[in-house]
């Protein structure tokens, strides 16, 4: 692992600028060969969803994502790693979460980004409440078994 790589972690209400976040990890250097970004967007669930409301645990959210990011930096030779998670009301089509992983080599960037997303899903203290188009009381989104399994696969893979 390259010495001194500090993850960038932000929890914010406002949208993010993917190009700017990539630039932050690549500009002015020539040792980055691969950048993988993941952005997660709010879907309208076939037109039934008006918005998602994202609640989070201030303080812990940042700390937990930083712990996951440090774990990724320890497992893959990255040159940079960024995770940004939004909170508040988010409309269909809008961004929710961004991960950017930079490395000399593509496999490390792909795996680290995928790992970070799997752990964000199952360990970062965020909860989604649905606001329905028909005005009915929204439900809290249920955690998916599949997300726990996705996170668990990283335990046996190395």
């Amino acid at each position, binding site marked *: 692992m390259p010495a001194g790589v500090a993850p960038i972690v932000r929890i914010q209400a406002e949208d993010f600028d993917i190009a700017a976040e990539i630039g932050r990890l690549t500009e002015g250097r020539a040792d980055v060969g691969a950048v993988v970004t993941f952005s997660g967007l709010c879907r309208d669930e076939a037109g039934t969803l008006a918005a998602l409301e*994202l609640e989070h*645990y201030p303080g*812990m959210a940042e700390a937990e994502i930083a712990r996951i990011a440090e774990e990724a930096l320890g497992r893959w030779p990255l040159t940079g790693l960024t995770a940004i998670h939004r909170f508040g009301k988010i409309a269909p089509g809008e961004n929710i979460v961004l991960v950017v992983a930079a490395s000399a080599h593509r496999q490390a960037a792909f795996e680290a980004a995928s790992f970070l997303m799997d752990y964000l899903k199952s*360990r970062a*203290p965020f*909860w989604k409440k649905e606001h329905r188009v028909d005005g009915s009381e929204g439900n*809290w989104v249920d955690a998916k078994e599949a997300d726990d399994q996705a996170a668990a696969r990283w335990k046996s893979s190395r």
Partner: protein
Amino acid sequence: MREPLTKLVYFAWVRERIGKPEEEVSLPSTVETVADLLRWLKARGEEYENALQYPDVIRVAINHEHVDHREKIADAREIALFPPMTGG
């Protein structure tokens, strides 16, 4: 000796069912683990009974770190109770 007051914070439907985002409680010395805390809270009234009906699904963090239900809560400044996370 345990500090007299412990801060409890609640999120998502745990918060909605208990009816408040946080409170400070004085825990009896019989409450040693997270599981003890959940049992003790559940007996505090209908809203707690409703929120903590299935204690197994409740996730708990002590001082901003995930813990399991067997964890001792000895020096907890802040204990958070919430449903499984759905971020990302």
